């Protein structure tokens, strides 16, 4: 990963900017919605992906240490995926989030509240890095 950042550095102009957006590594949370009621249903387990998020953060720290980049400003936001049903969201995650493990209890909570909509909230880091 550090090598990738070195490569990106070589592709940027001297005053270039790197925009680094990636999951913070906090387990994303399922929410069930019915009418005006919204309830947390539980968190997703991303197994290997969490390790990769940590490695990505470490690689960026190393790139900063090597004086390739300097953090100018950072922020965060919630990336939210919406679906009409738990089954629909689960099918999507099976394809797109291949490392994700979903506790069956989450699905049963969604059924219990008779959720009309389901959403998954993932906390994302965004860093604006100045090229040095």
């Amino acid at each position, binding site marked *: *990963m550090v090598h*990738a*950042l070195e*490569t*990106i550095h*070589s*592709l*940027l*102009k001297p*005053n*270039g*900017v*790197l*925009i*680094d*957006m*990636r*999951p913070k590594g906090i387990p994303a949370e399922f929410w069930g919605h019915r009418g005006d009621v919204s309830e947390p249903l539980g968190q997703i387990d991303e197994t290997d992906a969490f390790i990769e998020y940590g490695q*990505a953060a470490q*690689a*960026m720290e190393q790139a900063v240490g090597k004086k390739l980049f300097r953090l100018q*400003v*950072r*922020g*965060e*936001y*919630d*990336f*939210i*995926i*919406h*679906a*009409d049903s738990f089954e*629909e*969201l689960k099918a*999507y995650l099976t394809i797109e989030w291949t490392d994700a493990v979903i506790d069956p209890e989450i699905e049963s909570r969604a059924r219990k509240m008779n959720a009309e909509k389901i959403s998954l909230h993932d906390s*994302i880091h*965004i860093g*604006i890095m100045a090229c040095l």
Partner: protein
Amino acid sequence: MSILLDPELNETTALFGLFDDFAGKSVLEIGCGDGRLTWRYAERAARVTAIDLDAEKFAKAMETRPLNMKNVQLLNIGLEPFATQNKEKFDIAILAWSL
């Protein structure tokens, strides 16, 4: 309804809230996937080169490409081979969930 990704536009609100200096700039997006983010910022930039090694996602990006995005070059290639053959230096690089 099918799956909706970030219909609240939290991603671009956060991005443009922290950085909105795209005007006249060249952008390299590494790991553009299906182009979801690309189509949201590209019209603000002068030129965008968006690369992704995943052939399926690249095909989807080509498919969903808005007609007015003439300033975007999509390439089905990884970072290292791209860097080897590329001669241009970019103003901005974007790593969106791809480091």
